[in-house]
């Protein structure tokens, strides 16, 4: 799904791996973790904007997936099901974290530029992250999966369980709102 794991072309051996993981096969589960963990981290980061929280979330999502793996239909692709679980967990976690703390978005760019440019960039990131978080959950999810993580509309639609056309219109609306928020920020600082 996305650039690394096939949502469009599900990996052939995946139902077999899921079946083995269902029976407690560590190696099969490890293979699924190896396939999805990195992109799961990137998706989690898109929502949480914090590396450690994102790692925690990915770990919890895999554990939850293993606990509920019996609810995944035989032969159904693991990817969309797992990402749905991850996205829901990310939205819940962010709500929980927002209640607990108001932490600054950490800068991830190396500071080769002047402190003023760095500070302006990190301010813009903070603003963007908060604008993204202020979108309705389904719009935000479409932006994170499509624009940040490169999922196709078909893949996003499968994760969210919505038609592809709805996914496109969600993305269109989300971008328009984000552009408005961004231009307001640029005008008023």
């Amino acid at each position: 799904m996305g650039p690394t794991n096939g949502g469009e072309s599900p990996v052939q051996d995946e139902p077999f791996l899921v079946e083995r993981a269902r029976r407690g096969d560590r190696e099969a589960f490890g293979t699924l973790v190896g396939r999805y963990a990195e992109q799961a981290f990137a998706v989690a980061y898109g929502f949480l904007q914090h590396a450690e929280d994102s790692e925690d979330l990915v770990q919890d999502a895999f554990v939850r997936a293993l606990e509920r793996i019996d609810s995944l239909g035989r032969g159904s692709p693991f990817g969309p099901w797992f990402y749905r679980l991850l996205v829901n967990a990310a939205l819940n976690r962010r709500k929980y974290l927002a209640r607990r703390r108001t932490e600054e978005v950490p800068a991830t760019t190396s500071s080769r530029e002047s402190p003023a440019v760095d500070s302006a960039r990190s301010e813009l990131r903070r603003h963007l992250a908060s604008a993204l978080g202020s979108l309705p959950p389904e719009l935000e999810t479409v932006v994170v999966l499509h624009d940040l993580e490169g999922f196709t509309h078909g893949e996003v639609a499968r994760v969210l369980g919505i038609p592809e056309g709805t996914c496109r219109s969600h993305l269109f609306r989300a971008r328009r709102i984000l552009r408005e928020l961004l231009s307001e920020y640029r005008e008023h600082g």
Partner: protein
Amino acid sequence: MGERKDERPIPELEGLRAPRLSGRDRGRLHERILLVAEPILARRRSPATSWDVLAKWARPGLVAAGVALLVLAGAWQLRSDPEPAAQQVALSDALAVSESGPVPALLLASNEPDADAVVVAALLESQAGRVPSPDEQR
């Protein structure tokens, strides 16, 4: 114009992308997930015995049995201690003339009168040419 613009991604969003995990970070995350998942995998490896199944159902079973016992006890209580049936005023009691005539006697009775008693009392009262006042009726 604006619509065409909204079909394009917002370049500034690039800044919200996750940092790339190094090989070491990936390995660490992988190990960490497998470590936490191990007890669940172990549980899945060992087939459930009949005792496991029984243990799983023990709590809901006990709750259901408790509820059933409560319902039975309630039903038993209702059957063994029935509410006394409402006793109707006998015709003779209704006609017993008190100081103020048959109707007040009827009204003072603690149990409800039967239809005959009411009709007879009303007839007697009308023959006597006395209509009880609303206060008396109350």
